[in-house]
């Protein structure tokens, strides 16, 4: 019998847990099919499935699910609610399973993370393993092995990103959810534009360390986990970069509040870019070019 194929959409929390899922599922003996990097076609298919209030990132997610339908036996769509009190995820992450289950006719695999109700990530993964017919112990081992592997990778990635800080070029700290900035279609163009303009981008997300989090300098009452993690790196990084680029997709709820707060408090040059489906890149280029020009002029002082 062929191996069972489990599909993973390359969008949203793929950028947080993709490596983890892959490692876990492969260790348990499944074949993992990851959708390709985003293309315009994937985005367009996603938009066709979406309703008008969904954010661009969710539309991309649906486009990736659309791609996977028919190419695997089941798709992994977890429901991640929170990592404890004041560590909430965005409502899209919470509703993801139900949205996908309503829109597509394909078997779904899921797990719940809801730490305020004692549903920890480890428990969730063990349950997922057992749901797939594997033993509890085997699933637990697969989980821990995967965590270790992923942590190692993260450290490597972080080190590489930190090395960029010693560059003599203008450094732009990109404050963005990884599923936006690391996406091949929406984020890569921005990264390339920054590089073509002679500056470099620092991916804030790659710098996050889960045990270090100094978000208190900006607000003591943030409760979106992913935003909080990003804010938490600011105190230690902000004096080592020349400017901050807030990059979000339209209409992102958490970003619209958190970034607004940061813009009022950060006291250094920043640029706010909100991307939607538009295909013209002139507006974005003008903004990035002038922003980098201004950073160049500032340095002359």
């Amino acid at each position: 019998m062929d191996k069972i194929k489990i599909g993973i959409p390359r969008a949203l929390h793929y950028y947080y847990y993709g490596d983890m899922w892959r490692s876990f599922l492969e260790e348990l003996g499944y074949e993992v099919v990851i959708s390709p990097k985003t293309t315009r076609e994937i985005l367009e298919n996603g938009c066709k499935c979406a309703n008008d209030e969904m954010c661009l990132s969710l539309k991309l997610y649906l486009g990736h699910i659309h791609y996977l339908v028919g190419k695997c036996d089941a798709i992994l769509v977890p429901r991640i609610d929170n990592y404890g009190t004041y560590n909430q995820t965005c409502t899209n992450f919470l509703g993801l399973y139900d949205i996908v289950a309503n829109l597509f006719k394909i078997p779904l695999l899921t797990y719940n993370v809801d730490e305020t109700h004692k549903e920890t990530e480890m428990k969730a993964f063990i349950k997922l393993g057992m749901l797939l017919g594997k033993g509890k112990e085997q699933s637990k081992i697969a989980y821990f092995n995967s965590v270790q592997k992923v942590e190692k990778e993260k450290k490597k990635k972080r080190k590489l990103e930190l090395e960029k800080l010693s560059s003599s070029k203008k450094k732009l700290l990109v404050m963005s959810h990884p599923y936006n900035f690391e996406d091949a279609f929406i984020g890569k163009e921005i990264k390339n534009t920054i590089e073509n303009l002679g500056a470099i981008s620092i991916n804030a997300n790659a710098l996050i360390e889960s045990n270090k989090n100094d978000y208190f300098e900006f607000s003591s009452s943030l409760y979106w986990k992913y935003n909080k993690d990003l804010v938490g790196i600011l105190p230690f990084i902000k004096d080592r970069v020349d400017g901050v680029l807030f990059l979000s997709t339209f209409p992102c709820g958490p970003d619209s509040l958190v970034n607004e707060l940061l813009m009022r408090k950060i006291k250094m040059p920043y640029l706010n870019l909100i991307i939607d489906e538009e295909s013209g890149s002139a507006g974005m280029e003008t903004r990035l070019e002038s922003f980098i020009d201004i950073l160049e002029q500032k340095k002359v002082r």
Partner: protein
Amino acid sequence: MKKGYLGIDIGSISTKGVILDEQNKIINSLYIWTEGNPIKAVKTLLHQMKNSMSSDIEIYGIGTTGSARKLIGLMVDANVVKNEITAHAIGTTHFYPDVRTILEIGGQDSKMIVLKDGLIEDYAMNTLCAAGTGSFLSSQAKRLGVEIEDFGTLALKSKNPVKIAARCTVFAESDLIHKAQVGYKKEDIIAGLCKSVVLNYLNNVGKGKKIMSPIVFQGGVSKNKGVEKYFKEVLNEDIIVDTNSHLMGAIGIAILSHKYEDGKKRTLDVADIAFETQGRECEKCSNHCEILRIYKDSKFIESWGSKCGKVS
């Protein structure tokens, strides 16, 4: 023979041209509508500028700025192609070296530049949405049946500006229709729109920024007396609007073209050059990039838009 430097600012709504002499003084300037056709607008601009220019001036630098800067830069063989924000800052500090805050509202974008000792210290720009900019005002003017040139003067007549939501053009429009239907005077609605542009700007672009005088207000919308009045009123500060406030971008880019002069003499005779563009959607992969190919005298010179860089 005298040397001259041409700056062209091709915006979404208007196209501006300025010729400076070697002392960076304006010898010639022109302001025309872009009307959705930058190539034609620049041809007309150059043709008219050439006819009104004294024959002892030779152009030794051309700079282009504004949203069509790349395209026109190729067409006129520019030695400097720069974004309009930088150009504006350079133009303004040339005339007002002490300026601390530049408020600028153009056709599609609005920005704020904070300076200290002639150097840029901070900066903000609207997001990609064009709410509260020149194109917002001109579409509302059309709806009200008023010429955009008369908009400001009409606004000044009002004693009771109505409240209009300017966060989004769509909401503003429904507000506006409603206010008109319940019987508010046209000038009150227009004044309300001008005020809403100011409030929208200060809330969106100016958030968290300290606005210090001297303050210069520029960009096409600065020609609107109503908006100027409400900036003064809301900020409770004096606002400088230069007679050339709409030309600052063109002046700035002309100064830059002078600074980076490459010794090559340039011509304004582009009116007869066949300059064409051809857009198409690339079918080679599922990205479907929109590729724009540019031809000068039927010869292919450049293409833009390919994400992979392999397709021209």
